[in-house]
C-alpha cells in the first residue's frame, strides 16, 4: 500500500482504523482496485511516474463525519485532498495534486437541503450534482432555474469553488453563491455571511453578514472543507430570444465587441456570448489547418485576402449570438434595441434566432441547446472527437476587439516560435463566461502517449508564460499546472502567494488540507519544494 508523504506505516494503519470507525469500514478505500478509481481519468501524465495516485480514500456522509475525518488526519498529519463529485475532468478529476494524499470524497453528502422558490435560492451539499439539483427542482415542479456548466455531472459547490462558469444570467457560479458552511483544519465548523447568526433567517439571501467577507478564501484554495453552500437561482423567465449579429470586415470586430460590452454591462444581454468567425471556421474545416486558421501566424493569409474569401463565399468575418431572458415583450424589445446599437457598423446584418416561452415541452428540451436554459447535459464531451480526454488552457483577456486581435497574434507567434503547428489544439473563440472579460479556451487532447502528453505539457506551460507576459492569466487550471499558473501571478515579488501561504500556515498548521491546490503548499512541503 502506498503511504501518504511523511507518514509511517504504523501511523497510517492506526489512522485507517480510526477513519473506519468514523465513517464505517465500507467507506474507507485502500485496495488498488478501489484507489485507482481516484486517479485522474484525463491525466496528462498517463504512464509516467508523475501521474498522481492517492494512498487511500475516505467518504463521510455528513458534516459530523467530516469533522472526525479532519481531526484524525490532523492527529496523524495525513494530507487529505478534498473532492465533491470528483468530475472536474480537464482540471485534475478526482486525483490529488500530490501522490500519496488520501482523498476526502464528499460524493455521499448528496442532499439538496432546500430549494426556495419564493426567494429563488438553493442550499446543497457537496455531493449534489447539477443533474441532481435539476431533477429535484423538476420533480417538485418549482419554477426556478439553475445555471449549469457544460458537463452536468459536476457539483455546484465544487464548480463554484473552482470558479467555473455557465451560460445564463447566473453563469458566474462563485458570484451566484450565498453563504457557506466550512469545516476548518482543526475540525471546527464555521458558517459565513448571515450563517454566523445562530438563528439566521437570511443565510441564502444576504451574502455579507458582519465583518470581513471571507467566502472567497475558500475558493481555489485549501483553507477549509466546504460542506454546505447556498446558490441564487433564476426565477423561470417568461421567455427567451436570441439573435445573431454579423459583420464582414476584420476591423469590424472592434465595434462589434464594444457594443457587446455595452449591452452586457447594461444587463441587456445577460447570457454567455461567444464571438465567432464563420469565415475562419470555414477555412479551418476546409484547409485542415484546424486551430491554426484561428490564430494569426506568419503563414496566415493576409486580412485583405481573408476578407475577399469572405465576400466571395458570403461568410461573415465575425459574428456573435446574443441571448435575452425575460418577459417576451421585453426580450423582443431588447433585441430591437441591440440591433439599433449595432446598426452604426456599415454592412452589419441581423438574423433572428429562437423565440421561446417557458416551460419548454419535453420535445422542445430535446431540440434546444440545453446549457442555454440551465438544463444539465454532457454534450460537450462529443465536441473534441474520440479523444482519451482533454485539458484546457484558458486565459482571461479584456473584452475588446483589440485584445482579441492581440491574442490571435501573440498565441500564433508563440506556436510559430515553438515550431509547433497548433492544429491539434481546439480553439474556442472568446466567450463572456464572466462579466466584463473574455475567456479564450484552448483545449488540448489527452492521449495514452507519453511523448504527446509531454509535448503538450511543454506547450501549455509556454502559453501560460507568454500570456502572462501580455497581462493575461488563467482563470482556473489543471492540477498539473497549478504551480506554473500561481507563479505568474507574481506582482510585487509574489506578494499574493506569500499572503496565501501566511493564511495557510495560520489556519492549517499541519498542512493536511489539499496540499498544493492552486500553488498553495504547507510550510514543510514548501521548503522541500524550494
Amino acid at each position, binding site marked *: 500500500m502506498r503511504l501518504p508523504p511523511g507518514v509511517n506505516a504504523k501511523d497510517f494503519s492506526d489512522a485507517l482504523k480510526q477513519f473506519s470507525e468514523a465513517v464505517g469500514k465500507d*467507506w474507507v*478505500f485502500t485496495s488498488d*482496485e*478501489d484507489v*485507482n*478509481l*481516484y*486517479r485522474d*481519468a*484525463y491525466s496528462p501524465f*498517463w*504512464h509516467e511516474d508523475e501521474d498522481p495516485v492517492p494512498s487511500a*480514500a475516505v*467518504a463521510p456522509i455528513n458534516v459530523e463525519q467530516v469533522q472526525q475525518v479532519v481531526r484524525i488526519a490532523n492527529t496523524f498529519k495525513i494530507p487529505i485532498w478534498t473532492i465533491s*463529485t*470528483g*468530475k472536474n*475532468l480537464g482540471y485534475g*478529476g*478526482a486525483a490529488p495534486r500530490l501522490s500519496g494524499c488520501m482523498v476526502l*470524497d464528499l*460524493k*455521499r453528502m448528496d442532499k439538496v437541503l432546500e430549494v426556495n422558490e419564493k426567494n429563488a435560492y438553493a442550499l446543497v451539499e457537496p*455531493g449534489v450534482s447539477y*443533474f441532481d439539483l435539476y431533477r429535484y427542482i423538476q420533480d417538485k415542479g418549482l419554477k426556478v432555474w439553475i445555471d449549469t456548466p457544460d458537463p*452536468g*455531472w459536476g457539483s455546484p459547490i465544487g464548480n463554484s469553488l473552482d470558479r467555473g462558469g455557465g451560460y445564463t444570467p447566473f453563469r458566474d457560479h462563485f458570484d451566484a453563491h450565498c453563504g457557506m458552511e466550512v469545516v476548518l483544519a482543526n475540525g471546527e465548523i464555521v458558517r459565513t455571511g448571515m450563517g454566523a447568526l445562530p438563528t439566521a433567517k437570511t443565510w441564502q439571501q444576504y451574502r455579507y453578514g458582519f465583518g470581513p467577507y471571507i467566502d472567497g478564501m475558500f475558493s481555489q484554495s485549501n483553507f477549509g472543507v466546504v460542506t454546505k453552500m447556498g446558490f441564487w437561482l433564476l426565477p423561470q423567465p417568461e421567455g427567451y430570444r436570441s439573435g445573431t449579429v454579423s459583420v464582414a470586415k476584420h476591423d469590424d470586430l472592434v465595434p462589434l465587441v464594444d457594443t457587446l460590452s455595452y449591452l452586457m454591462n447594461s444587463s441587456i444581454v445577460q447570457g454567455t456570448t461567444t464571438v465567432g468567425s464563420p469565415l475562419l471556421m470555414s477555412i479551418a474545416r476546409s484547409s485542415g489547418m484546424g486551430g491554426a486558421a484561428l490564430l494569426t501566424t506568419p503563414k496566415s493569409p493576409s486580412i485583405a485576402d481573408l476578407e475577399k474569401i469572405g465576400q466571395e463565399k458570403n461568410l461573415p468575418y465575425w459574428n456573435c449570438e446574443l441571448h435575452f431572458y425575460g418577459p417576451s415583450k421585453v426580450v423582443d424589445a431588447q433585441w430591437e434595441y441591440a440591433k439599433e446599437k449595432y446598426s452604426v457598423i456599415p454592412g452589419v446584418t441581423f438574423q433572428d434566432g429562437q423565440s421561446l416561452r417557458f416551460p419548454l415541452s419535453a420535445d422542445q428540451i*430535446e431540440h434546444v441547446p*440545453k446549457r442555454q436554459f440551465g438544463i*444539465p*447535459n*454532457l*454534450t*460537450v*464531451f*462529443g465536441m*473534441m472527437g*474520440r*479523444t*482519451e*480526454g*482533454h485539458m484546457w488552457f484558458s486565459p482571461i483577456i479584456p473584452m475588446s476587439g483589440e485584445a482579441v486581435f492581440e491574442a490571435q497574434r501573440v498565441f500564433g507567434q508563440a506556436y510559430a516560435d515553438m515550431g509547433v503547428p497548433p492544429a491539434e489544439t481546439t480553439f474556442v473563440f472568446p466567450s463572456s463566461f464572466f462579466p466584463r472579460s473574455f475567456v479564450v479556451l484552448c483545449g488540448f487532447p489527452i492521449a*495514452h502517449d507519453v511523448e504527446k502528453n509531454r509535448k503538450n505539457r511543454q506547450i501549455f506551460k509556454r502559453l501560460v508564460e507568454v500570456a502572462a507576459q501580455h497581462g493575461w492569466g488563467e482563470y482556473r487550471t489543471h492540477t498539473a499546472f497549478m504551480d506554473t499558473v500561481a507563479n505568474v501571478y507574481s506582482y510585487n515579488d509574489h506578494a499574493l502567494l506569500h499572503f496565501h501561504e501566511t493564511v495557510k500556515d495560520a489556519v492549517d498548521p499541519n498542512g493536511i488540507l489539499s496540499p498544493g491546490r492552486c500553488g498553495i503548499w504547507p510550510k514543510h512541503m514548501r521548503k522541500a519544494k524550494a
Partner: protein
Amino acid sequence: MRYARIFLLVALSVAFAAQAFAAPDESQLDRGHRVYQKWCYPCHGPGADKPGTASLAARGQKPAVLEDRTDLTPAAIKIFVRHGVLYMPTFRKTEISDADLDAIAAYLTRNNKK
C-alpha cells in the same frame, strides 16, 4: 498501463463471448433502470447530443444506444464502468456502488438471448 489496456481488450473479448446469465428479479431490473437513467442515460441515451451514443455510432456499433443492445455482458459493462474508455471516465464506488453496478448490468442484459 499499456498491459492494462491489453488486458481490458482481452477481458472484453472473453466477456462478450460469455453466455447464459441467471435471470434477475424485477426489483433488480427496476433498480438497474433507475441507476442507468441517472448515470448512463445522459451520455448513452438516444439523441444527437449524447456523446457516448455518438462515439459508439462512429465506431460502427449497431445499435449505438446501450439500452437497445442484446450482446452486452455483465463483465464487459463492469470493466467499462470501472476502467473507462476514451473520454468516458472511471466511476467510483461512491458514485456507482458494486450493487448498483450489478443492477445496471442486469438491466442492460435483460434482452439478451438466454
